[in-house]
């Protein structure tokens, strides 16, 4: 079998965990590569890495994927319970702990069901078969006559043996073979049902649910102080004044890294304010001029790659259109700033973190602090929804720095609101240039160019240390370089290659190698902007061809599943071919298959434009999605509708404000998001395909929603906005 081949060049942070875990793959005799196993079994190959059967008949499930509010832990529990034939209530989930769980890299890219879910399905089926074989020996019955119900194996003559009675004999310390057949979809009783989320009751009643809620004996409170701008150096500060403040235990300074630890949380907050007041900084880097941001970014050094090319002659007389689209820097803007708890005891560092990848984080903290990974344990504890790489990992590093200064005492480090807004890695600003040709109602030529900074600056990079605090140490560490990521996942070029059946197309990714503004992975990476551009331009081409946007899309799609979601959303919204806006109201469609290999989704948005105030309202949105086999319909709906609403917020409101001296978005007043009165009604049609592979869905809605809103605005007003977000200024300018 071929082992996965990864060149350094193709390395992406999203794949970091997999690369790191190659060393864990057992060496096989005769020097052969081990057999390819499905999902994350490939990199975590023993059954006991995933499943443990307990003496009381309960099951403990281990997964490297973590709960980010997307409901994944419940969905994975459903998959394991289904294959093992145990009730969901008898499953305990352990997730994201470098001391206990498989290494599955990052929980990112809508890949958890495909990677962890596949591993648990196959491991579950194999363990069930193994337990049945043991029961057959014990009962002296043929294995194929035994039936499992609720974790009890029954013989036809009425004798039975529970899973718990077989734990002593069941040796799960063996490599998975992936030979046992998982249950066919028709027999599913737990998968495919809307099982209530495991984590929700505690969250609604004040249970300890988040890393913020962790209280360890003797725990003290930390805060950090960041420079006034990227790269500034700390020249001086008033240590004595802060040390004399009530409750202050330690002031931590290492180069330009500055933090404080106090007995009580409010004391740490007050000490931080005094540190800020008297700290003197110098230097630092200038930011782009916001008025000329896109031109400046495109003038920076870039590494260009043609990622898709299909050649055919463009017919003479075809109508040619060109358009340029922009998407600004946008923040993850989690509802709470990042937090972590760290404890250094007897030379061992433990960090509780809401990182998306505890293994890459551990490896990177080790390199930053000169420790051995075996002396660090990173344990996932939930945080507020992150939607990608926010400050979580950086806060974990900061907590470790502070914990070193108060040896033995656990430190709870909470970033303040402005720490998160000003220092998180944003979703990059992007420019998309599209050129298309239509003839005879068909697209006959298509050129797509996208410019973007890196979307992958996560911990786990082999050549850099992607933990922000470490860049400010006296022994300053450096971040890794920007890297291309292989298609179909891509990064800035995610979903840049159109899926439409065009005879000629050429797609080029211009990866900007410099980082004038800190960026990394925000939900969908480049797909949000690329789909916004592709789908906006499809409407522009449809208008040039004089064809209804829904019909125009269908004319360029052969695949039945692609067609089905577009047809389903058009039906749900009662789309009328050729329907026109009235100057104020209009509707538009957006479509994509996420990453070109995951969930199919189409979105129709209805907008109402207040022409004098320049305000766009979106009263209704319809979606249709095909995520293959649905594990949990309610969970899938929640993810899709959440994605729709978040994308609407990005599309109408969100951009990071800055000037040449620094970031200006520091709280919700200067980074406003969508609020309750403006949230649309969302209607979702799910197309279940129980016999197809389950497809990643958590990020699918973002791009099509942006396009549907922009297309609806154009349908309503006859004017098109190609630069996000659709602010009142841009709306008024477009209508002037």
């Amino acid at each position, binding site marked *: 079998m071929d082992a996965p081949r990864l060149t350094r060049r193709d390395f992406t942070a999203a794949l970091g965990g997999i690369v790191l875990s190659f060393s864990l793959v057992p060496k096989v005799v005769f020097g052969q590569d081990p057999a390819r196993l499905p999902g994350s079994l490939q990199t975590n190959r023993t059954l006991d890495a995933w499943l443990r059967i307990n003496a009381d008949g309960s099951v403990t499930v281990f997964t490297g994927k973590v709960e980010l509010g997307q409901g994944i832990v419940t969905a994975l529990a459903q998959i394991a319970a289904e294959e093992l034939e145990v009730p969901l209530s008898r499953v305990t989930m352990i997730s994201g702990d470098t001391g206990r769980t498989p290494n599955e890299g990052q929980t990112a890219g809508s890949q958890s069901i495909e990677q962890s879910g596949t591993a648990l399905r196959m491991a579950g089926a194999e363990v069930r078969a193994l337990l049945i074989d043991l029961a057959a020996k014990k009962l002296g019955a043929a294995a194929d006559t035994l039936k499992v119900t609720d974790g009890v194996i029954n013989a036809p003559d009425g004798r039975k043996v529970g899973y718990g009675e077989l734990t002593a004999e069941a040796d799960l310390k063996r490599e998975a073979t992936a030979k046992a057949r998982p249950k066919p979809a028709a027999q599913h009783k737990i998968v495919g049902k809307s099982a209530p989320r495991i984590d929700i009751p505690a969250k609604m009643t004040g249970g300890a649910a988040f890393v913020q809620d962790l*209280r360890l004996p003797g725990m003290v409170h930390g805060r950090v102080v960041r420079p006034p701008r990227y790269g500034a150096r700390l020249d001086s500060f008033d240590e004595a004044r802060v040390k004399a403040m009530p409750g202050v235990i330690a002031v931590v300074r290492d180069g330009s890294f500055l933090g404080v630890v106090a007995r009580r949380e409010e004391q740490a907050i007050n000490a931080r304010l005094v540190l800020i007041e008297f700290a003197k900084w110098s230097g630092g880097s200038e930011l782009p001029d916001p008025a000329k941001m896109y031109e400046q970014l495109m003038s920076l050094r870039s590494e260009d790659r043609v990622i898709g090319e299909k050649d055919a002659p463009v017919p003479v007389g075809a109508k040619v259109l060109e358009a340029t689209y922009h998407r600004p820097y946008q923040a993850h803007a989690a509802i709470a700033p990042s937090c972590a708890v760290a404890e250094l005891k007897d030379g061992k560092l433990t960090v509780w973190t809401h990182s998306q990848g505890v293994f890459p984080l551990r490896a990177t903290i080790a390199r930053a602090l000169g420790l051995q990974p075996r002396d660090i344990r990173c344990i996932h504890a939930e945080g507020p929804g992150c939607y990608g790489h926010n400050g979580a990992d950086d806060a974990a590093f900061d907590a470790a720095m502070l914990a070193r200064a108060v040896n033995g005492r656990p430190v709870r480090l909470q970033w303040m609101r402005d720490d998160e807004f000003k220092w998180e890695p944003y979703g990059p600003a992007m420019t998309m240039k599209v050129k298309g040709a239509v003839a005879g109602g068909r697209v006959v030529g298509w050129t797509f160019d996208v410019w973007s900074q890196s979307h992958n600056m996560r911990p786990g990079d082999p050549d850099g240390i992607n933990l922000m605090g470490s860049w400010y140490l006296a022994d300053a560490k450096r971040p890794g370089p920007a890297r291309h990521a292989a298609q179909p996942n891509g990064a800035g070029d995610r979903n840049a290659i159109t899926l439409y059946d065009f005879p000629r197309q050429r797609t080029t990714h211009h990866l900007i190698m410099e980082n004038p503004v800190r960026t990394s992975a925000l939900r969908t990476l480049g797909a949000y902007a690329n789909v916004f551009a592709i789908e906006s331009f499809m409407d522009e081409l449809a208008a040039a061809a004089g064809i209804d946007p829904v019909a125009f899309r269908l004319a360029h799609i052969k695949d039945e599943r692609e067609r089905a979601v577009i047809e389903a959303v058009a039906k749900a919204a009662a789309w009328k071919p050729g329907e026109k806006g009235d100057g104020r109201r209009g509707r538009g469609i957006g479509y994509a298959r996420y990453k070109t290999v995951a969930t199919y989704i189409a979105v129709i948005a209805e907008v109402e434009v207040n022409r004098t105030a320049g305000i766009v309202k979106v009263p209704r949105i319809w979606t249709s999605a095909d995520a293959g086999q649905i594990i949990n319909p309610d969970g899938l709906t929640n993810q899709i509708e959440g994605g729709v609403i978040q994308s609407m917020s990005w599309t109408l409101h969100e951009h990071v404000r800055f000037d040449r001296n620094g970031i200006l978005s520091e709280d919700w007043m200067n980074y406003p998001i969508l609020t309750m009165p403006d949230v649309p009604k969302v209607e979702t049609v799910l197309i279940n395909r129980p016999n197809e592979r389950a497809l990643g869905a958590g990020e699918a809605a973002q791009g099509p929603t942006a396009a549907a809103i922009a297309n609806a605005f154009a349908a309503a007003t006859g004017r098109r906005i190609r630069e996000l977000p659709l602010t009142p200024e841009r709306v008024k300018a477009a209508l002037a």
Partner: protein
Amino acid sequence: MAISLKVNGATRSVDAEPDTPLLYVLRNDLELNGAKYGCGLTQCGACTVLVNGAARRSCVTPVGSIEGNEVTTLEGLGTLDKPHPLQKAFIDEQAAQCGYCASGMIMAAADLLNRNPQPQEADVRAALADNLCRCGTHNRIIRAVLRAARQNGRI
């Protein structure tokens, strides 16, 4: 200095400066998880509690200013075994993605139902306008509040 507080029906004494925001006393001294830090600036609503039955942002409320008043947190509404109608409705509607904003949403909704036991959808949207949700779970939250109202979710 010692400050006496009435929280969730019980009298509690804490040793804190009077200007300490109530939020930190609730979370750290009384070990109550409900009220959450989100911004510390009254902008997001994650820290919302009830003071004498009315919604208050605990992140800027000095603990010394509410001595002798009744403070209610999420924990004071109900428990896992005996949830308040709002808590039950949020669970039944699965009205969470990350769930970090949920406590503030429920407390703001409790304030609404105290003032207006039979709200319309527009009333719910208006009452929760200053409580931010980042995951896009708004519609479920609205449905949960309306469901609780139907079940007379007053406290």
